[in-house]
C-alpha cells in the first residue's frame, strides 16, 4: 500500500525557491525525498509563494536589452515553435506537463491550454504558407565542386536531412550531440538593412549539415544576384572554403523575419572555423572573391 506523499514543508519550499531541486539533499537545493512531494521537482502552486518571493527579489536594469544575434536566434525559435505547435495534434510540452512535471493543480490549466490547438493550427497553416515562401533551401545542384573525395558516408544522412522542412531540420540539430552553435554577425554591405544581419548557425560536425538563421538581409532578385553560404575548414586552404549552396531572401521578407537556411557541406569539413555568406552572381560561384560578405560567424574554441 503506497504512502501518500507528505506535503512539502516550509523549509523544503524555501530551499526549492532559492536553490532549486537537488538529487542530493545533503548538498544543494530542496530535499529529494520521494515522500516529500518534491521529487518531481516543483510544488503544486505555480509559482509557489516562496518562488514568487525569490522572483520579486530579482532586480534587473531598466531597458536592458538582449544582443541582436541572440534576439535573431530567439525569433527563429519562435517561428519554429509556431510551426511545431500548429502541426502537433496536441502541444507535446503541454501534454508532457500534464503527465509528468505538471502537478495536479496545473493539469487542468494545461488541458485548457491544449484546447487552444485549433487556433494554433489555423495560425500554422497561414504561417506555413508564408514560411514556404520565406524559408528556402539552398539549391541542391548549385556549384557542387566535383571531387573524388566526396563524403560517401554522408549520402544517406544528407538525403534524410534534405527531406526535412527548415524548421524540422533546425529542431533536429538542436538535439544533436555534436551540435556547434555559431553567432552570426553582420558586415558592412549593401545587402544589409536595418541594424544589419544577425543570427546563428547550427552545425552538426558529425552529420556535416547545418541550419543558418539570419535576419537583416535584403530580399534579392535571383536573376540579379544570390546569397551563397560557405564553410571554412581549419584543415583546408583558407582560400577555398567548402560550398554550402545558394539561397534567396524573398521579396516579402521583413527585416526582422528570420530566414532559416538548411545546408549540407559539399565536401567533408573536418573542423569548421567560420561560416560566411557572400553575394554572388545567379547560381553562385566555385571560388568567391569575397568582395561582398554581408554576414559571417566564427566558431568559438
Amino acid at each position, binding site marked *: 500500500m503506497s504512502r501518500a506523499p507528505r506535503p512539502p514543508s*516550509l*523549509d523544503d519550499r*524555501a*530551499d526549492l*525557491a*532559492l*536553490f*532549486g531541486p537537488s538529487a542530493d539533499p545533503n*548538498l*544543494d*537545493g530542496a530535499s529529494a525525498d520521494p515522500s516529500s512531494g518534491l521529487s518531481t521537482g*516543483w510544488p503544486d502552486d*505555480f*509559482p509557489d*509563494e*516562496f518562488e*514568487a*518571493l*525569490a*522572483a*520579486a*527579489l*530579482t*532586480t*534587473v*536594469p*531598466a*531597458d*536592458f*536589452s*538582449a544582443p541582436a544575434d*541572440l*534576439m535573431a*536566434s*530567439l*525569433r527563429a*525559435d*519562435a517561428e519554429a*515553435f*509556431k510551426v511545431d*505547435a500548429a502541426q502537433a495534434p496536441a*502541444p507535446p*510540452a*503541454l501534454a508532457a*506537463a500534464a503527465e509528468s512535471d505538471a502537478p495536479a493543480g496545473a493539469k487542468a*490549466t*494545461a488541458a*485548457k*491550454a491544449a484546447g*487552444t*490547438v*485549433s*487556433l494554433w493550427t*489555423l*495560425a500554422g497553416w497561414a*504561417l506555413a504558407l508564408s514560411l514556404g515562401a520565406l524559408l528556402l533551401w539552398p539549391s541542391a545542384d548549385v556549384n557542387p565542386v566535383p571531387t573524388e573525395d566526396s563524403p560517401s558516408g554522408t549520402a544517406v544522412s544528407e538525403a534524410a536531412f534534405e527531406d526535412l522542412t527548415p524548421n524540422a531540420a533546425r529542431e533536429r540539430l538542436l538535439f544533436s550531440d555534436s551540435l556547434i*552553435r555559431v*553567432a552570426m554577425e553582420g558586415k558592412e554591405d549593401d545587402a544589409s538593412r536595418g541594424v544589419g544581419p544577425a543570427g546563428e548557425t547550427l552545425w552538426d560536425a558529425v552529420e556535416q549539415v547545418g541550419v543558418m538563421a539570419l535576419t537583416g538581409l535584403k530580399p534579392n532578385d535571383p536573376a540579379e544576384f544570390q546569397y551563397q553560404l560557405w564553410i571554412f575548414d581549419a584543415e583546408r586552404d583558407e582560400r577555398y572554403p567548402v560550398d554550402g549552396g545558394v539561397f534567396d531572401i524573398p521579396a516579402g521578407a521583413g527585416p*526582422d523575419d528570420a530566414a532559416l537556411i538548411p545546408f549540407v557541406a559539399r565536401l567533408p569539413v573536418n573542423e569548421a572555423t567560420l561560416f560566411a555568406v557572400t553575394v554572388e552572381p545567379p547560381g553562385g560561384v566555385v571560388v568567391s572573391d569575397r568582395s561582398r560578405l554581408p554576414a559571417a560567424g566564427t566558431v*568559438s574554441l
Partner: protein
Amino acid sequence: MSQSPPPPLLPRVAAGESEALNACLERYAGPVWWLANRYLPRRADAEEAVQDVFLDLWRHAGRFDPSVAAEKTFVLTIARRRLIDRRRRLSARPEALGEPPEQPADQPAAVETLAIEDESARVRAELAQLPDGQREVIEMAVDRGMSQTEIAAKTGLPLGTVKSHARRGMRTLRDRLRSPTPSSAHSAAPASPSPRIRETL
C-alpha cells in the same frame, strides 16, 4: 508611484496568437538575458539558457494564472528554475563554471526592479532588514544563482548555517510581506493569513 503592468501576453500565447510570441521576446528577452548573465558566466551558456527559458515559457504559457502571480513574476520564476538547473549541471564541470561575475560587463549603473515597482521595492526593503547573515545568503542565491555549497565556500560558513540562514530569512520575508503593514512593524503581530503577496507580486 506604481505603474500598472502592461496587459499579460502569456494568455495570448496559450491561445495561439503567433504575434504574442514575438511580443513576449520584446518584453522579456532583456530581463532574462540579464539574469542569465548573472547566473552563467560564459556567454554561450547564457545564450543557450535564454533560448531554453523561452521555449519553456511558451510551452507552459497555459499554466500562467494571473490570480496567482503577475506575469513578470511567472517569467522570472521559469527563468530562475532553468538557470539554476543549468548552473547546477555545469557545476559538475568546474572549468565551465568559474566565479560568478560581480557585474555583467554591460550593466548600466542604475539598477531598477523589473517586478511591479513598489512591491519589488518593498520586498527588497524587507530583505535589507534581515540580519546580515540571512540577507547575504539570500542575495547570493537570488542575485548570482549560487548554490548552498558555493555560498558556504564563499562565506566560510558551515553548510548547515547557510541552509538555516536561507530558510529563516525566506520565512521571515514571507511573514512580513503577508502583513498588511509594511516594514515598520516588524516586531508587531505575526503574519496575517492574507494572500496579499500572491495578489500583488
